[in-house]
């Protein structure tokens, strides 16, 4: 009932005069920019690019489209049609972030922008049209502004209703602005195929059914009586019918521009020492945290963007186990400048701009310390942060157990405060070690030597046959250190990534016990013996 009323309401409301701004192939442009492909090459349509989502083509460049690449193709097939195709994995965060400047540029000209999807946004046409004289003038002004920020191929459609305006913008053709006169949306949509309804709710069933009923264009669908469509296809069908007939009452819902909480420090002349930069941003960091706390927020994640005088931008996100104080912010900037190296204080090129953006904020009430303090955890976090300021962010680690065969592969480390991503710990991993596990796992495997009773090195054939029983063992790899073995077991062959010639690895593992009762985990790889771990 409720849905029926909604459809009815949409039918009664008159379609709003809407304006849709469309940037063609936005995911491709954004991903290519992120991957460092020259932008004019993308626009000049001589670069064969495709963006892939879950193994299927999500978007492609004009050149690739000319070769027959279409949305929804599998990578293999797309590459077969266009052999020079370069593919990128879709990263929605990158695509959305790249679209942000476009939205902000439009919001400067007219408030109330709705983001339909990355690459497409909608506005109410009435306000801009009145301000710029007419709709055409408004559209030209918008395009000029977009060209200023580097988006030169945007298109604008103006029509009654979002659906018609969207298709007016996207319809192939040379003109950059297409205006459907008021009341003409129905006529404009009528010759278009019903396939254009794709993407609406219930359209997957509706479109093939209409095709079998002999209804091929939106105009033929719109000529059906609304009551009949509703009784046959339900509410989803009724809504699609309204859209097809150009009586789409869907309003433009402007987004509320998010308040950007950031702190920007510009340095002129650029600073080339880390301590200068950290000193320079201290006051800004104080202000940043103070502003957040004034609005009763704490920040649990920040992104730091460092711009060097050569124009390079280094950015990285940092998390905090609790929340950032101003000194924590300064610390993160310093660590990012150091780039993992705790000693270096001079920089390759001067830093001209430091931008700190709050990525994750939370109500400070949730992070209030208790009346008696929050006890040991808080003390531990403070202490570890102090340790990190001594040995660098990557110097203090936490660990979890993940998947893998060799004992050294199974541990995943993360710097203190970052999230540890462990995967595959529960998987069976045939060929991994049975418990008890070695108490010492060498960070760098040690070179050792295993020999037969005669002093010949022990080898394992491709079929896993031992050349002779191991009898002597040298901890240092030197032949004069050979001592007798009291027990041994193996070889346990592990063949990893045999399908990949470069990453292929064949290891034969042994456990041996030396004459002092010390046990070792040895690995024979490429005729070289190494100690991977020790049971001490």
């Amino acid at each position, binding site marked *: 009932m409720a849905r029926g009323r909604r459809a009815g309401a949409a039918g009664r409301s008159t379609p709003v005069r809407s304006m849709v701004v469309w940037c063609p192939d936005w995911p491709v442009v954004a991903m290519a920019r992120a991957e460092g492909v020259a932008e004019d090459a993308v626009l000049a349509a001589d670069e064969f690019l495709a963006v892939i989502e879950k193994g299927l083509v999500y978007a492609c460049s004009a050149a690739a489209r000319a070769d027959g690449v279409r949305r929804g193709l599998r990578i293999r097939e797309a590459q077969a049609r266009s052999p020079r195709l370069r593919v990128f994995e879709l990263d929605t965060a990158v695509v959305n972030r790249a679209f942000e400047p476009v939205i902000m540029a439009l919001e400067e000209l007219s408030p109330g922008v709705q983001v339909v999807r990355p690459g497409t946004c909608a506005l109410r046409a009435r306000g801009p049209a009145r301000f710029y004289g007419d709709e055409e003038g408004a559209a030209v002004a918008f395009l000029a502004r977009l060209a200023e920020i580097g988006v030169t191929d945007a298109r604008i459609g103006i029509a009654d209703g979002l659906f018609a305006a969207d298709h007016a913008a996207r319809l192939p053709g040379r003109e950059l602005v297409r205006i459907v006169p008021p009341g003409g949306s129905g006529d404009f949509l009528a010759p278009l195929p019903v396939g254009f309804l794709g993407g609406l709710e219930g359209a997957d069933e509706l479109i093939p059914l209409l095709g079998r009923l002999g209804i091929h264009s939106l105009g033929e669908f719109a000529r059906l009586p609304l009551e009949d469509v509703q009784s046959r296809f339900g509410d989803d069908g009724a809504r699609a019918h309204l859209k097809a007939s150009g009586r789409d009452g869907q309003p433009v819902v402007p987004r509320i521009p998010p308040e950007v909480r950031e702190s920007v420090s510009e340095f002129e002349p650029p600073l080339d020492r880390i301590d200068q930069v950290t000193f320079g941003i201290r006051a800004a960091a104080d202000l940043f945290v103070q502003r957040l706390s004034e609005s009763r927020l704490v920040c649990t994640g920040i992104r730091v963007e460092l711009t060097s005088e050569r124009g390079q931008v280094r950015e990285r996100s940092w998390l905090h186990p609790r929340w950032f104080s101003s000194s924590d912010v300064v610390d993160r900037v310093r660590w990012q400048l150091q780039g993992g190296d*705790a000693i270096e204080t001079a920089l390759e090129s001067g830093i001209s701009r430091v931008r700190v953006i709050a990525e994750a904020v939370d109500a400070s009430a949730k992070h209030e310390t208790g009346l008696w303090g929050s006890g*040991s955890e808080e003390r*531990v976090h*403070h*202490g570890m942060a*102090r*340790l990190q300021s*001594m*040995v660098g962010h990557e*110097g*203090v*680690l*936490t*660990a*979890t*157990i993940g998947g893998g065969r060799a*004992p050294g592969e*199974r*541990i995943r*480390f993360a710097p*203190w405060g970052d999230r540890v991503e462990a995967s595959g710990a529960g998987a069976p991993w*045939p*060929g*991994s070690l*049975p*418990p*008890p*596990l*070695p*108490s*010492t*796992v*060498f*960070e760098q495997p040690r070179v050792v030597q295993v020999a037969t009773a005669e002093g010949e090195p022990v080898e394992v*054939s491709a*079929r*896993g*046959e*031992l050349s002779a*029983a191991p009898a002597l063992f040298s901890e240092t790899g030197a032949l004069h250190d050979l001592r007798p073995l009291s*027990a*041994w*077991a*193996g*070889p*346990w*062959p*592990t*063949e*990893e990534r*045999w399908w990949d010639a470069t990453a292929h690895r064949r290891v034969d593992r042994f*456990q041996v*016990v030396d004459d*002092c*009762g*010390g*046990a070792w985990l040895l690995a024979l790889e490429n005729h070289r013996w190494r100690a991977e*771990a020790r*049971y*001490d």
Partner: protein
Amino acid sequence: MFEYEGMTDAALSISSPAPAGDEIRALRSRIQQMQATKLDSRSVRTHPALESLLPGGTLKAGSAYSVERSTALVMALMAGPSADGVWCGVVGMPDFGLEAAAGFGIDLARLALVPHPGDEWLTVTAAMADVVGVVVTVPPKRVPDSAVARLQARIRQREALLIVLGEWPQSEATLRITESRWTGIGSGHGYLAGRQAVVSATARGGLGRPRRARLWLPDGDELFRPVEGQVGAGQVGAGQLGSGQLGSGQLGTGQLGTGQLGGGSGLERARPRILHEVAS
């Protein structure tokens, strides 16, 4: 008269330097043994297997313990406090076997590592002692006495526990493995299933009588426990062989998984032999 005789005795004993020096040293060591670092040191939860080895039967907060050449013993010392929810910090041990530690009951969620403290060893260890309850560390080759004293004072003040892999001059007790025998592995068959080790502990100063205990370090279920009686131990050993055979079965499937090998490996040949041993 008697007093006079006594005096001559005393005078004599003082006049002969060699035996007196010995006596003084012996007395000093007695005093050192009887002196606790603190009168009422708080005891820390200790793994039951180690209770018989440690002076006073428990780990004491604010003191240091040293272990010679055995990370497994270090883990046994850590396991007690970690089970109590105490934070542990490991400094300067890039080779620390974390998965084994987790198996022995050390909570990885409350474990912080500084694998490469570099030249800052003392500062890092001291800062770690400020925040965690158990600090495990390998000292650099030469530690100046002043550094030892400073770290020891910090540990005492924070009531933390310092476990040193290597020598430490002021340790409450030094633990070492004097004998180690692995079960489950033969020449070319089985796999490492457990270890019986004789652990000896020397109390402060190194002059008291060492205490000894025969422990499973660890047994087949990754547990530390005392070996109960020699006869029983033999039977357990046989049981271990049985499980060793099971383990080799698992490894056999590993080989299948990698698509490798027929009956050529030492393991495959070994299986009937183990069966035979278990049957006999």
